């Protein structure tokens, strides 16, 4: 399986100038960064805020690239235990980068921390700001939560604007050219319009359509969004789940979608092997999912909906953290095979159900027992003794379709006898 590079990574801006729009934010950020490099930081940290997919992280990465700095990303959930905080603070305060380069410490999505109501994490970051010898960048979609006030006070606040439709179209066009993709202008406009300024989601949409169909037309864009809620939404939720860096992200991937959790469970069940191929990771992920399923069963039985939270814990973080190392993974959209198979074999299952319904009352047993204990033997008779099979078909008034289903390769022979006897 060729590993596809997500376009949001492939077309990440390499230079500050490549970052679309955001001129004032760029200016502020460069000024702040240079003040650090001169040894006289304006403020120790910068907090970049603005709507999703407007270029906050991209700007940090592009700037690091231009100034030859190393980006060290920190996991906010590391900020929970005291020894971790101290370890990180020590690293930030004393250690030089391995290649004697400067570095930027990046704390992505700090507004997620406040969501977990984790007071300790905020204190830990404040402590880090005091001792650090390197610039610290935080990002947030919404920095205005009361809990984040200490961080706001300690940081240079840099606002990012929502990208305009024109900005998004411009970037999409560049990608289409680089990929030699046939793209209709109004299709790109439609993607941009629907993205509401979120460039990351626009690029993901573009790639989903391009890789699915090899071209991008307005019809395909409309189709994509038509099934977005029904089918594409779980796909996006999976992406978030399996790429979650923190517990809260994994949990949010499950709880903050429009998909009900039972459907989501089918999707996770389907795609664990898509994201994991190491047997240990596979076993751990499925073990977590099976625990979620057990909790689900207990809820159904006892009506204790309080347990739902454990279902989410197990199918979200439980599955996401089954991995041994973190690696961003981007997989092509595929709908669950179980659903496809069920659709394909629907007729066949209906026939079997019909046979069970015909036989169960005659054999004084349940349809389930007929399917399990009787039909296998009936199939042996039908595939080995067409003449006798035809007589049994007569005895139970089986339909032609049922006979064909039971007899398989011998269908025509059984049917020939059946028609002869029936006359």
């Amino acid at each position, binding site marked *: 399986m060729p590993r596809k590079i997500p376009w949001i990574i492939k077309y990440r801006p390499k230079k500050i100038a490549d970052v679309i729009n955001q001129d004032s934010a760029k200016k502020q950020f460069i000024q702040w960064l240079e003040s650090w490099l001169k040894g006289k930081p304006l403020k120790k940290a910068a907090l970049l805020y603005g709507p999703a997919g407007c270029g906050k992280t991209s700007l940090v990465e592009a700037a690091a690239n231009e100034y030859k700095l190393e980006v060290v990303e920190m996991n906010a959930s590391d900020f929970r235990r005291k020894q971790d905080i101290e370890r990180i603070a020590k690293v930030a305060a004393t250690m030089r980068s391995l290649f004697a380069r400067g570095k930027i410490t990046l704390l992505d999505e700090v507004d997620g921390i406040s969501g977990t109501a984790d007071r300790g994490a905020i204190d830990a970051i404040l402590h880090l700001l005091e001792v650090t010898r390197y610039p610290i960048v935080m990002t947030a979609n919404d920095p205005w939560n009361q809990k984040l006030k200490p961080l706001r006070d300690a940081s240079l606040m840099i606002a990012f604007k929502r990208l305009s439709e024109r900005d998004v179209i411009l970037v999409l066009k560049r990608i289409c050219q680089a990929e030699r993709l046939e793209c209709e202008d109004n299709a790109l406009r439609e993607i941009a319009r629907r993205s509401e300024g979120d460039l990351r989601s626009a690029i993901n949409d573009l790639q989903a359509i391009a890789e699915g169909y090899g071209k991008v037309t307005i019809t395909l864009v409309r189709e994509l969004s038509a099934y977005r809620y029904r089918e594409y939404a779980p796909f996006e939720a999976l992406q978030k789940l399996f790429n979650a860096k923190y517990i809260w992200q994994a949990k949010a991937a499950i709880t903050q979608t429009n998909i009900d959790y039972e459907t989501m*469970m089918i999707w996770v*069940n389907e795609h*664990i*092997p898509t994201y994991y191929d190491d*047997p*240990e990771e*596979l*076993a751990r*992920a*499925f*073990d977590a*999912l*099976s625990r979620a*399923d*057990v909790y*689900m*069963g*207990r809820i*159904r*039985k006892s009506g204790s909906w309080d347990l739902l939270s454990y279902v989410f814990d197990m199918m979200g973080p439980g599955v996401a953290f089954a991995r041994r190392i973190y690696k961003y993974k981007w997989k092509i959209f595929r709908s669950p*095979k*179980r659903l496809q*198979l*069920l659709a394909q*074999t629907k007729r*066949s*299952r209906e026939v*079997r159900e019909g046979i069970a319904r015909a*036989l*169960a*009352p*005659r*054999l*004084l*047993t*349940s*349809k*389930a027992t007929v*399917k*399990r*204990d*009787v*039909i*296998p*033997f*009936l*199939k*042996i*008779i039908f595939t*080995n*003794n067409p003449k*006798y*099979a035809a*007589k*049994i078909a*007569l*005895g*139970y008034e089986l339909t032609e379709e049922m006979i064909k289903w039971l007899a398989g390769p011998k269908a025509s022979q059984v049917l020939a006898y059946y028609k002869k*006897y*029936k006359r």
Partner: protein
Amino acid sequence: MSSSREVLAELLWAEKYRPRTLDEIVNQEEIVSRLKKFVEEKNMPHLLFAGPPGTGKTTAAHCLAHDLYGENYRQYMLELNASDERGIDVIRSKVKEFARTRVAANIPFKIVLLDEADNMTADAQQALRRLMEMYTATTRFILIANYPSKIIEPIQSRCAVFRFTPLKKEDVVSRLKWIADQEKVEYDLEALEAIYELSEGDMRRAINILQAAAALGKITVESVYKVVGLAHPREIRQMIQLALAGNFNEARDKLRELMINYGLSGLDVIKQVHREIFSQDIKLPDEYKIIIADLAGEIQFRLVEGADDEIQLNAFLARLAFIGKKLKS
């Protein structure tokens, strides 16, 4: 015209040779004699028939009803199967509807036969208990279960409990012999004994094997094993082997084939897996067979409790793949 059709039509022997009256039942003597008392007295309490599959519980219930009401007994009996009915509400409305219809001239009650009652949840059984009380003037319930311990205490205490024991070898073999003679098929006696061994005392299963083997020709030990082999999908073993070799995805495809094409339930699959694990064809150190059996037991328990077939079995296969990997390294 219709007569020639009747001659040509064949039935499954499990139906064709089922006892129709209590007198025709050849085993479970003690139970039969107690049931005959009810017929004499034209009265009976609620009954609970418990015992392993294929020991004649459902047949005994039908024979009892037959002897009470005569040939047309089925119009005085409501037959329900807990594993086919969708929930207690469906059962309730059917019983309610049935209780309204008239009773036979000489018997003051009608019978509700509820098969596989141990498949009902405890809550549904509570509702069932109320139902039994509500209609007790005009109906008697016969509940049938494999495991009486899964029937809640308040129901057990309202029923006369009959425990059906596994059939003895000579009973099964002589019955098979009798059927084979009626059908004028040739057989080896050892073949009939082999059928008993393979059917684990389940008469319905034994008769199914007999009939399928007869369709192949003379009934021999060989043809019996062939039939049982064909009836057990090979995919179960292949699935286990694929998982142990680390091919999780292919093992999962096999699982889907079994469940969708063969129509096996998750429980069917895990039970057959359990049997396969200890066979010679699964090459594993013994201590791992024990670990896997333990795991299968846990999965089976979860499925009985109502967990999702595919998720639980995937978890099982993933663990097999992991064990397989550990063994290789």
